[in-house]
């Protein structure tokens, strides 16, 4: 497909090894030449700009500081189709939303490198007086103009760009002064693309990670981040954590050392706390084993990433609980949504409200920890028992090389992603919610999850089927996709009415 060009030039065989610097220079030159604004990128000027930023506008420092102080920072999502709309949005999120981290989400044409369409989208948006794009076309505006956004706020800024093709957007974003960048080769390729091969996706993000490492070499520590939320649709913690470990190993291989891991909330207080805890524990363990002992990996908890209810009042509960879960789980930051989630991109005001509700919820729960709870420990053990055999097998299949191992594991279904649009993963794994609200696996496809763990999942899911008087089949998984978005009269009706 034209929208997915192969990586530039004749590439060496896929591996997790660092890209050689002179190869990288060539790759950069070719990459920057793909759109006029690429010429505006001057890395030394960019490095100087980053160094001139106060540290509280540098996300690399801010994430480390928040982790050290035990804080849970708030960050929304948000992108509109023109510079003016985007500036207004970011200022609103900073001032009215009290956001600790201010985002710029790119539009989907930009994500798919359809910059000509994006250009048209900008015009249409200006004509229509409303955003016709679902994000900010960063490449079209280029780094010089985009710096106005960084200057308009007093917080660190992060680029959110769900795509397997981040190379030019990343160059522009870092040059513009963004100190954070979300995205990774394995997670985004499996959840945002159809035909793109894992190899292409991984290579594209190796470029991005290598670029971050280049800034590091020049004395600027940027914050890279991995989108473990994947398809946002009932992702069991173990699968999210597996993708986190894979992408973190790939990033570390390119020289990244400040790498956040995102986890979509399951909406179960205990399961989310266990997921946040084990994500860091297991990631640090596997990275250390591969020789990366100094990788900083703070965990970010994400408001419910599945389907939202249409009722604003119900959504308020999801927003607030999202703050509660992140705080109690000990996440270093929480990514927020708004009461408009089920309908469309939120207005700046609705977005800011979601931030403030979340901030208050975090404040109220900031002291609570579940560490001593036996149920918490049980869930931690289950997560470890699911992650280790799969991760070990992946590394084994790659003869120690995580890039190769991941590609082969997905072909074989050893590693799998629920509800994936991508043709190169089997997507046979089927999660569903059990009678106690935990996300379990109805089917784990060909993933080597231990039999005793799977029979535990089955027992819990059968209990739910029994309780609800429905057959024990894969409709449990489909019903679980809808559950949280159902209206209250269906979700919890008055029990005894005539």
């Amino acid at each position, binding site marked *: 497909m034209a929208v997915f060009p192969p990586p530039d030039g004749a590439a060496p065989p896929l591996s997790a090894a660092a890209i050689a610097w002179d190869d990288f220079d060539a790759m950069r030159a070719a990459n920057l030449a793909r759109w006029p604004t690429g010429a505006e990128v001057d890395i030394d000027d960019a490095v100087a700009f980053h160094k001139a930023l106060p540290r509280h506008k540098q996300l690399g420092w801010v994430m480390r500081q928040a982790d050290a102080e035990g804080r849970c920072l708030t960050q929304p999502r948000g992108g509109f189709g023109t510079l003016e709309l985007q500036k207004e949005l970011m200022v609103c999120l900073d001032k009215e939303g009290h956001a600790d981290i201010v985002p710029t989400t790119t539009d989907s044409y930009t994500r798919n490198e359809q910059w000509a369409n994006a250009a048209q989208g900008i015009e249409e948006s200006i004509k229509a007086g409303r955003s016709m794009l679902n994000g900010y076309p960063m490449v079209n505006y280029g780094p010089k103009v985009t710096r106005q956004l960084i200057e308009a706020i007093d917080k660190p800024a992060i680029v959110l760009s769900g795509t397997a093709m981040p190379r030019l957007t990343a160059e522009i974003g870092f040059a513009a002064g963004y100190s954070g960048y979300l995205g990774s080769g394995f997670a985004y390729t499996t959840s945002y693309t159809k035909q793109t091969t894992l190899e292409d996706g991984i290579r594209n993000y190796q470029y991005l990670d290598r670029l971050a490492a280049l800034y590091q070499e020049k004395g600027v520590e940027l914050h890279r981040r991995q989108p473990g939320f994947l398809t946002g649709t009932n992702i069991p913690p173990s699968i999210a954590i597996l993708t986190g470990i894979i992408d973190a190993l790939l990033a570390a291989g390119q020289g990244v050392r400040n790498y956040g891991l995102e986890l979509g909330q399951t909406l179960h207080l205990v399961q989310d706390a266990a997921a946040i805890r084990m994500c860091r524990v297991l990631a640090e363990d596997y990275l250390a084993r591969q020789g990366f002992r100094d990788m900083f990996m703070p965990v970010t908890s994400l408001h419910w990433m599945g389907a939202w209810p249409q009722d604003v009042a119900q959504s308020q509960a999801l927003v607030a609980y999202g703050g509660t879960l992140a705080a109690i789980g000990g996440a270093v930051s929480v990514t927020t949504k708004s009461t408009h989630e089920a309908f*469309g991109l939120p207005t700046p005001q609705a977005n800011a409200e979601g931030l403030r509700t979340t901030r208050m919820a975090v404040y109220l729960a900031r002291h609570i920890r579940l560490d001593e709870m036996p149920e918490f420990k049980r869930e931690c053990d289950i997560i470890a028992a699911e992650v280790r055999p799969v991760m070990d097998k992946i590394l084994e299949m790659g003869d120690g090389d995580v890039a190769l191992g991941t590609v082969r594991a997905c072909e074989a279904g050893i590693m799998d992603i629920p509800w994936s649009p991508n043709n190169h993963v*089997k997507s046979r794994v089927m999660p569903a919610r059990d009678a106690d609200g935990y996300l379990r696996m109805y089917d784990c496809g060909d993933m080597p999850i231990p039999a005793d763990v799977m029979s535990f999942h089955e027992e819990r899911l059968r209990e739910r089927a029994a309780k609800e008087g429905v057959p024990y089949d894969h409709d449990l998984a489909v019903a679980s996709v809808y559950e949280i978005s159902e209206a209250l009269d269906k979700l919890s009706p008055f029990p005894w009415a005539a």
Partner: protein
Amino acid sequence: MAVNTPESGPRPITLVTGVIGADTHIVGNRILSMALEAAGYKVVALGALTPADEFIKAAIETAAAGIMVSSLYGQGELDCRGFRDLCIEGGLDDIVLYVGGNLVVGKQDWSEVEQRFLDMGFDRAFPPGTRTQEVVAMLGADFQAQLAAP
């Protein structure tokens, strides 16, 4: 993972489904495709990230009676422009066209949004959160009406 399309009953009606444009939201489209199959249709599921012309190509090849276009990511308003014209060029003058999802950017008044898509030539447009039962019912009714018509 493409939804497989078994024959169900004598000459089942064929439907093409997919998510248009640069849109990766596959979940609802996949569940819808399953529901349409369960309802006895032959479903050709193109999946996510499907350019408009691929819908028409598939519809011609499979002699489909209808196309079910999903758009969730907000840019459907741009992606769906001229979709009916493409069908007509392809000789699919009166193929049934449904569109559904989160069709526009942001929370906009539905009746206006619906009108915009009807004006583009879609037979029906469906608001966010539509359930499959509703779609299956509508579709049944519309095909009944077609058959009834002289």
